[in-house]
């Protein structure tokens, strides 16, 4: 089973943690890209047909068919490598899901790597099914959610440090991420909620519910994971309140004890 967070060392010898993109978010990105690719092929075909009709006297039928077929092949086979290479590891689908391809040695992506991981899709899609059965199995049993293409190309897929706001909820979260990452607060620092007097509950009902869930459920977690989860939960709340606290877990316990905004549990 894949592990959510991995640490890699930068060339400056500083370990940096990355969050691995799970099999389902990658599959969702793949579906998005598949749809994009289908639309692209349809548009290109219609465009080629239009051009062939307009220039039917100047260009032979053979040349038109040959050029169109070659162009479509380049579009289909080049979609993933070209986007991943030129868009810093992100196809449109990956960008929408807030994930990107990186090399596991943290060097810049090179074309040979992205081309190879594209070629290995042939095996990831075995045995000829419309979904990557081998790839999904490989991702599910790999601790870093690597499909065969990632294994051979020395790459992996990680989450961007910040998800796009419209996906920062639970819709694509699948499982534990939905618990540890609350929806981004809608209010900015300095607003009424942030200015609530100390000593009274300052959390919105939604924040309070998530913080209380954390406090109730976090007892069984090992300390390191509990701290990391506390930071996920407390981070957006602290940003909204415009505060900085060293102990996120303690902060959450204190706030849960105070109750939601406008109420006091004491």
């Amino acid at each position, binding site marked *: 089973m894949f592990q959510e967070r991995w640490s890699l060392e930068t060339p400056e010898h*500083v370990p940096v943690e990355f969050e691995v993109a799970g099999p389902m978010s990658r599959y969702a990105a793949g579906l998005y890209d598949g749809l994009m690719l289908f639309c692209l092929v349809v548009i290109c075909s219609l465009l080629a047909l239009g051009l062939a009709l307009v220039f039917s006297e100047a260009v032979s039928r053979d040349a038109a068919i040959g050029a169109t077929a070659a162009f479509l092949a380049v579009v289909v086979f080049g979609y993933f490598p070209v986007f991943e290479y030129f868009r810093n590891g992100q196809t449109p689908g990956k960008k929408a899901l807030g994930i990107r391809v990186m*090399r*596991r040695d943290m060097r810049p*992506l090179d074309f040979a790597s992205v081309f190879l991981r594209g070629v290995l899709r042939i*095996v990831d899609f075995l045995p000829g099914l419309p979904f990557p059965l081998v790839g999904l199995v490989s991702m599910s049993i790999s601790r870093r959610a690597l499909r065969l293409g990632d294994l*051979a190309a020395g790459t992996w897929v990680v989450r961007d*440090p910040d998800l796009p706001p419209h996906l920062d909820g639970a819709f694509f979260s699948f499982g534990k991420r939905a618990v540890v990452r609350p929806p981004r607060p809608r209010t900015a620092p300095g607003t009424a909620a942030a200015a609530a007097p100390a000593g009274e509950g300052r959390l919105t009902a939604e924040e309070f519910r998530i913080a209380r869930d954390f406090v109730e459920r976090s007892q069984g977690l090992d300390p390191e994971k509990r701290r990391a989860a506390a930071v996920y939960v407390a981070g957006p709340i602290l940003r909204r309140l415009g505060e900085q606290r060293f102990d996120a877990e303690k902060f959450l316990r204190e706030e849960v004890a105070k109750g939601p905004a406008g109420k006091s549990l004491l």
Partner: protein
Amino acid sequence: MDRAESFVRTRAPAWTAFEKELAGVRAAGSVPADRIVAFARAYRDAAADLSAARAMGCGAEVSLRLNRLVSEAHGAVYRRRARPSTERRRGAAARMLVALPRAFADHPGTALLGLAFFLGSALLAGLYVAGDERRVHEVFPTLENVIHPGDGKPGEKLNVMPATLTSFYIVNNSFVAMNFLAHGILLGLGTTWFLLVNGSVLGALAAHFAHQGALHRFWPQILPHGVTEMLAMMTGAQAGFLLAKAFWRPGEYSRVDALALRGREAGVLALATVCLMVWSGFVESYLTRSTADDGVRNLFAAVAAVGVAAWFALALRAKREPGEGDGVRAGART
């Protein structure tokens, strides 16, 4: 105020400023040219701060903030160059030209294994069909649609136009070669299977032509494009066996790291394979399937073979760059 808190208060404005700059870089897609030095310095400072924050126990919130900052900035600092210089582009092309011959020279075992599977299956299939000519349809059921041992020129039998045919050959043959490569990851068994199938077809066809007394017509229909196409297929197989070698003989690396290491070589070979297939696609549709004389075809095949031999000889004589061939550091072990 303790040391950690003082550290955070002192450094926080710099982090906020860097976060704002990163947001701008994210929107623009790259670091502005006039900010590169300052941006790299800010990145190194943030990396040092992350290390210090962990050492001082500044808390998870600070560490996470800096971790995000450094990981995103790393992607901007170490991203691929937006516009590689002409010199770098030429360097990349030159590396690809020498990579293919060197892959065969550096791993002669896998190259010979591929050749042995292909030629061995061709020989066995040839002997099988030679025993009874009707067996050719067992090995190659679509024979009649593809090639004919009769006296007519092959181009006359085909009602397909050359440009269309070129696209078909390039796409189809590249896909076949990519299968050779990709299935190498299944411990090499997939690559072996594809070599056996394709070798059998070639052997059965040769025996079929021989049985019809038309072997002199066979080679001119195969060799003009076959010289580069065979090389491309062997290159794909070589790449596939390199991936398999990472499993069977990982050497001093873990299998995962060995696979990433061999994968880098295989990726370059995959690109070379496609280039070769594009060339052979043009030759096959415009020369092999044309009404050109057999003499012209044979001459073209001979020139192509000499060209390939010269390419290999020159590439293998070229000096290696420092560090080349020593292996690339595979994925970081975490």
